[in-house]
Structure formats: C-alpha cells, structure tokens
C-alpha cells in the first residue's frame, strides 16, 4: 500500500482546524467523534507504514541560502515509526476516553481541537528529519500543552499553571536553540542523516564543541521533560483535564526530550556519540536526571492528590530515563525502551485515575477515597496492574524489563548513580503501594466515593487495552515488534536483579506497615508536601526580580521615553518654537525697526559682498 506519510501530519492538523472553525458551535459529541476518527485514521496509517517494506524519501526544501538548506522532511526509520505507534496509539485511546470524560464540558470543541493540534505537533517532532523542523514542532507542542493545561482557564490556578508550563518550556528552548546552532557550527548541517558523515573527519570540532553542544541541547530536554531545575511545572500541569495528563504529561510530550537526545545519539553514530556523551556534559545530564528522580520520588510520597502523586512519579521515571541517556549509547537504548513501557503503564495509571475521579464526583484527594476495589472492580484491577508495572515487579510486568536494562547500564557506568537508582526504585514502590492501599482497600472515607460505580464502557476499553500492554509490552517477542530501539536482553539473576528485588520488597513492606488500614495520613512531612519549596524559591528570588525589572523597563520606555520625551517632548518643542517665533509680533515698533534695519544690512551684505 502506498500510504502517503504526509497524511500523518495533515490529518490531525485538518481535524484541529475543522473542529476549531466549523464545529465549535455544535455539540461536544460531534467534535469528540471527529477527533477520535482522525486519530484512529492516523493509527491505521502508522500500522500500515510499519508493515511496509520500502519507504521513499519525503522532503522538500523550504529555505535555501548558499550552503544553508532548511527542509521540511520526514525521517521514517524504525525508531520514528515505532514512536509514532506510541503517539497515535495513546492518542486514540485518550480520545476515546475523553468522549465520556469531557462529555459535559461546554468548551469541549476547543479541547478536541487542541488535542488534534497536539497530535499534529508531536508527529512533527517524531518524524522530523532536521533540527530546525524539530524545533518548530517543539514550540508547537509547547503551545498545545499551554492550550490544554489551561483548558479551564477561568480558574486562576489553571491559567497560572499553563503560563508556568509555557514559560519554563521557553526557558529550556532558549538553550535548545543555542544547542542547535552549535550543532551547525560543529557539523555544518542540521539534518540528522548527515551528521555522522559531516563529523567523521572533524575530531577537533568534536573535541572542542561536542560537550557544550550536548549541554545546550539538553536544555531543551530540561524544559520539555521537566528535569531539575525546571521541574516545577509538571506538578502544576495537573490542573488540566486528566486525559490530557495521560497523553501529554505521561506518555508523549515529556518523552520528547528523551526522544530528541536519542535521535541525536542515533544520528551521530555509535563512536562519535560515545565520544560526546562521555564528557562533562553527559555526566551532568546523568546527575541531573538522578537528582530529579530522587527529588520527585521524595515529593510523591507526601502528596494527597492522586494526580499529583502520578505527576511526581512521572518526573521520577523521566529522571531515570535522563540518567540513562546521559551515560552513553547503551543508556540511550535503555532509556528509549523504558520510555516505551512507561508510556503504556503511565497512560493506564492516569486514565485509571481519571475514571476514579469521574466516578467519585471529581474528588481528587486520596484520603477522601477508599474501598474502591469493591465498587469499581475492573478499573481497580487495571489500575493495580499499572501500579505493578510502575513498581517494576519482576518478570510479570513490562516495567521491570526496561528498568532492569537501565539499572544494568547504570551499574556498568557509575556506581554512585546505581545506588541512587536503587533507592529511588524502593521509594517508587513505597509511594505507589501507598496510593493503591489508600484508594482501593479498606472502606470509603467520604460520601463522594461511597456511591462510586464501575466506570462506563468507553472508559473501560482503553483501560483494558493499556493493562494488557502494560503486562506484555516488555516481553522480547512483543518488544521487538513494537518498541523503538530494542536490544534483546535476557533476564539474568545477577547482582543488579537481586538488589532491585530487595529494594522492591523493602519498599512494599514499609508501605504496608505504615499505610494499611489508616484513615488519615500518618506521616507528617510538610517539606516534601510542598515539594522542597522550589516554587517559593523561584518566586522570591527569580520571578519577582524579573517582573520588577520588566516593569521598570516598561516604565522607562513607555512613560519616560515615549510619553515624556517623544510625545510630550515634541509638543513642548513645537510650543517652544511657536513661543519663540511669537516674539516677532509683540507690536513693539522699535523691534520692527530694528528687524528692518538688520534685514537691510544682511541683504546688502548678501548682494554686494557675497
């Protein structure tokens, strides 16, 4: 079948525009089904492309200046296509889920339009064949995220969260752009498939610029994948609707940073990538990832909002991936594998949380839920499967396969980071089990959750599909077909495996002891609950001063420069000149005589002497 891959970009874009312009006045169901159908179409096209044997080149030149050629093109290698499976797969499931979740929302059409726009932008990032195109779609993804987080923008906290997300992304993107330009300086090209060839005979360039380029490119991942220190926006992004959190802040957008770095690694080729990533930049990336993982895990165990717990857990897992990718080519493969498995089970967890919230009358506090296992059995089962994958229960869940791979790589490269990773694994189990115990076991703690029913069928279908995937996607046979960048890796009962299993057990036992049968939060950890006060720090030491500076600048330019100097100044100058000229008309004859005589003298001078 000759399917045109451009359709992958066009369909979501057209769907977004159509919903925005034509369908915004209709009922939300029309827009919902339109969006779902378009994402299903994309999914089918992606499956078809994955089967196809031969794929042509798809690019056209956009800007050509001397030897600078910017093109818009699609790179359809296996990594990209399998990543597209994740994007369109989860996109379709989220669309399906939203048909119920957002059914009663008045502005649902805007939601679906933004969702389609997001799918369009994410497709652009995944399929981009050069850095500039990726950057353009990177920014578009930021925009879609802003629109989706701020969907209920009439609520102050939602509008602020959207703004915060966009601004932090933007800060990261500044460094990202510098990194892209440094790639140009280093290699002379923006295209991924030309990087290896251009850099073959430039060891000096690589040595001098490689590390700083990587560091700047990582800034993009800092912003987009919410690593420390730009991590505070992800927790606030939970103000958006839950399906949005599932799609964007679990599976796809935040994974874009990892994907970009992996793309970079792939295009450099094994040797050059090892050279560049084993510098101070790679080490910095790894340590930042580890730091994020630890901070997020610690914060997660003190939260009481179900979505915030999942958000911090996403941060922690992203930290794992970044830590892995900073350690070299092998780490990159492990990170991508973990991204793939994480996408499925995290989306499952978020959609499960969405179902729970929907049925508990939009109650999000876990201490006001309880005993939901009996009331919503299928949802509970799917959720528990997802949690198991998150906890990386060995062999049975997909999460364990990918996490093992990461731990292997980290153990091989850096022992300190290995023990940090083990600690975080233990914490992961602790907070996940806490969540499961408090929400599902025991008795209901609040009226909201006491009459919860099973979730509707349109919500259950995505949950079941994702639960199945959460179990099987790690298995070698399946992973070979579906996972981007998979390396056959048998489970070996070595030191790494044993230490991770022990960590899981410690975490599980601790969670059981502390949380089983409790009615209120037993631990009092305000520092962790406030996420180490990063928000406060940024507000007081950065934001306030920047705002004051901008206000001052605006004051200078607007009130002083434009108002006083230019506008008023011109007026006063005119009045002043007028006043000066008026002196000639004071009616004083003596003055007139003087002027006449002086004029005569001047004229005589001009005619006789000059």
């Amino acid at each position, binding site marked *: 079948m000759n399917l045109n891959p451009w359709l992958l970009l066009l369909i979501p874009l057209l769907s977004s525009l159509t919903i925005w312009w034509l369908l915004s006045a209709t009922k939300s169901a029309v827009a919902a089904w339109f969006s779902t159908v378009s994402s299903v179409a994309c999914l089918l096209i992606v499956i078809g492309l994955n089967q196809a044997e031969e794929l042509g080149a798809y690019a056209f030149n956009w800007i050509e200046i001397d030897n600078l050629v910017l093109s818009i093109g699609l790179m359809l290698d296996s990594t990209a296509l399998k990543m597209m499976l994740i994007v369109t797969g989860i996109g379709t499931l989220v669309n399906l889920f939203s048909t119920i979740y957002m059914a009663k929302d008045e502005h649902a059409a805007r939601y679906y339009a933004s969702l389609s726009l997001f799918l369009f932008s994410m497709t652009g990032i995944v399929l981009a064949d050069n850095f500039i195109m990726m950057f353009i779609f990177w920014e578009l993804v930021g925009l879609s995220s802003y629109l989706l987080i701020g969907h209920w923008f009439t609520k102050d906290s939602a509008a602020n969260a959207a703004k915060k997300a966009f601004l932090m992304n933007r800060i990261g993107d500044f460094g990202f752009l510098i990194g892209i330009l440094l790639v140009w300086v280093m290699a002379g090209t923006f295209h991924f498939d030309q990087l290896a060839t251009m850099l073959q005979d430039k060891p000096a360039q690589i040595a001098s610029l490689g590390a700083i380029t990587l560091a700047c490119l990582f800034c993009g991942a800092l912003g987009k994948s919410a690593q420390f220190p730009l991590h505070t926006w992800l927790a606030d992004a939970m103000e958006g609707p839950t399906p949005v959190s599932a799609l964007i802040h679990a599976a796809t957008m935040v994974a874009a940073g990892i994907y970009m770095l992996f793309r970079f690694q792939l295009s450099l080729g094994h040797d050059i990538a090892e050279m560049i990533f084993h510098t101070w930049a790679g080490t910095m990336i790894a340590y930042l990832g580890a730091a994020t993982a630890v901070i997020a895990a610690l914060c997660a165990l003190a939260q009481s909002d179900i979505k915030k717990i999942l958000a911090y857990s996403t941060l922690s897992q992203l930290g794992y991936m970044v830590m892995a990718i900073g350690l070299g080519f092998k780490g990159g493969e492990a990170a991508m594998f973990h991204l793939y498995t994480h996408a499925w089970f995290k989306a499952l967890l978020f959609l499960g949380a969405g179902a729970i919230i929907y049925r508990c009358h939009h109650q999000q506090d876990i201490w006001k839920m309880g005993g939901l296992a009996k009331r919503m059995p299928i949802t509970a089962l799917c959720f528990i499967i997802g949690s198991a994958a998150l906890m990386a229960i060995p062999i049975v869940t997909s999460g364990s396969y990918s996490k093992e791979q990461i731990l292997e790589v980290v153990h091989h490269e850096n022992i300190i980071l290995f023990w940090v990773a083990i600690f975080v694994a233990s914490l992961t189990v602790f907070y996940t089990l806490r969540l499961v115990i408090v929400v599902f076991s025991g008795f209901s703690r609040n009226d909201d959750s006491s009459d919860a029913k099973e979730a509707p069928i349109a919500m259950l279908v995505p949950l079941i599909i994702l639960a199945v995937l959460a179990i099987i996607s790690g298995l070698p046979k399946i992973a070979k077909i579906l996972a981007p960048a998979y390396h056959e890796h048998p489970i070996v009962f070595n030191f790494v495996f044993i230490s991770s299993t022990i960590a899981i057990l410690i975490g599980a036992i601790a969670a059981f002891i502390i949380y089983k049968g409790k009615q209120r939060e037993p631990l009092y950890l305000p520092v962790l609950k406030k996420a180490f006060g990063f928000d406060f720090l940024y507000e007081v030491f950065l934001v306030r001063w920047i705002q004051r500076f901008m206000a001052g600048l605006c004051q200078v330019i607007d009130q002083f420069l434009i108002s006083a100097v230019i506008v008023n100044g011109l007026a006063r100058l005119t009045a002043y000149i007028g006043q000066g000229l008026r002196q000639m008309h004071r009616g004083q004859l*003596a*003055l007139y005589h*003087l002027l006449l*005589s*002086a004029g*005569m*003298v001047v004229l*005589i*001078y001009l005619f*006789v*002497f000059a």
Partner: protein
Amino acid sequence: MEQTKIIMIDLFSFVPAILANVMPLGLTVIFGLLMLVSALVVILAKNPVTSALGMLACFVTLAALFIGLDAFFIGILQILVYAGAVMVLFLFIIMLLDLKEPSELEMSTVKPASIILGIVTVLLLLIQIGVVLSKIPTTLFAKINHAQAAKYFDSQSVITAKLNQGILPDAHLIGQALSLNYAFALQLIGIILLLATIGVIVIGQKSSH
C-alpha cells in the same frame, strides 16, 4: 513773486567763474560737517524743540550743499518747502501737543539691549558703506560749458541768453521741462498733495461720537 525769484537767482551771476565748477572742497566739507552735527543734535537732544531746530539747521546746510552742486532750484525749494513749511508744521505740532522732555519715568523704560543692537546695526551698515566707497576711484566733476550748451536751445529764448552770460538757468530749464514733458506728472503731484490734505483733515477730525 516770480520776479523776486528771478532776481534771487540772478544774484548768483556775479560769480560765474566760480560756478563753472562745483564748490571748493573746503566749503563742501564745512557744510557737510555742519549738516552732520545738526543731524546728531536731532537724534541726541532730549527736548523735541531742540530736535526740530537741529533739523532746521540740517536742512539749511543741506540746501547750501545743493546750491554748491549747481542745483539752485532744488536748493531754494528745499528751504522753502522743508524749512519753511515742514519744520514749521513740526514745531506747530510739538507746541500744540505740548510735548515736553521725557521724564525720568519714561526714560527708565528704555532697554539698553535694544539701543546697543541699534548702534551695532548702524555700525555694520557704516562698515559696509565704507568698504564700498573705498573701492570707488576718486571721480571729479566735469566743468559745465555754458557756451557749448547754448547751441542746443532756441536762439530767442531766455535760456540761451542766460547760458551765453555763463549762468545756469536752472529754474527756466526745469520749468520748460515741467510744462512740456512732465505736465501730467505735475498734475499728479497736485492730486497727491490734495490727497494728503484730505487725509490730514479726515485723520484730524474729532471722532463721530
């Protein structure tokens, strides 16, 4: 009246030799200096009557200069009209309006800046005139050849007779020209004087209320 005039002009026939050329330099300079001194009196005197009398002296010396330049008719006319009529008019108005010396109060409103500027302007003008004059070579007046000129006129006329006597018959020449060539202009001058008279009467009227 006419006879008186002709007699006056005839008195000058006693010095034909001198009058073939203009006044000697010494006389010109004396009269010129007197004229300038009188002019300075006009502008510097506090009392307007003093100014008027200074102007009178100025005009008289000016008339002397005119006569020294063989412009007899103009000279006499100057004294008659200016000294006789215009100055009288000035003095009359000064006396009528009872203008006195300007008091201390009035003098204090004078701004020194304007005076200095005025002096500067006039000085600049003087410098310019001086430069121009210094570039002109000294040009002397030509002698009037009366006998030669007599040939151009009708042999029967008074002008020829006077010219043969070596006198310049200024009045006759001007009269002839006025009557023959510039008669219309003469009428116009008369109308201008009439207009001036009407104007003076209209301006000088009491206001209608």
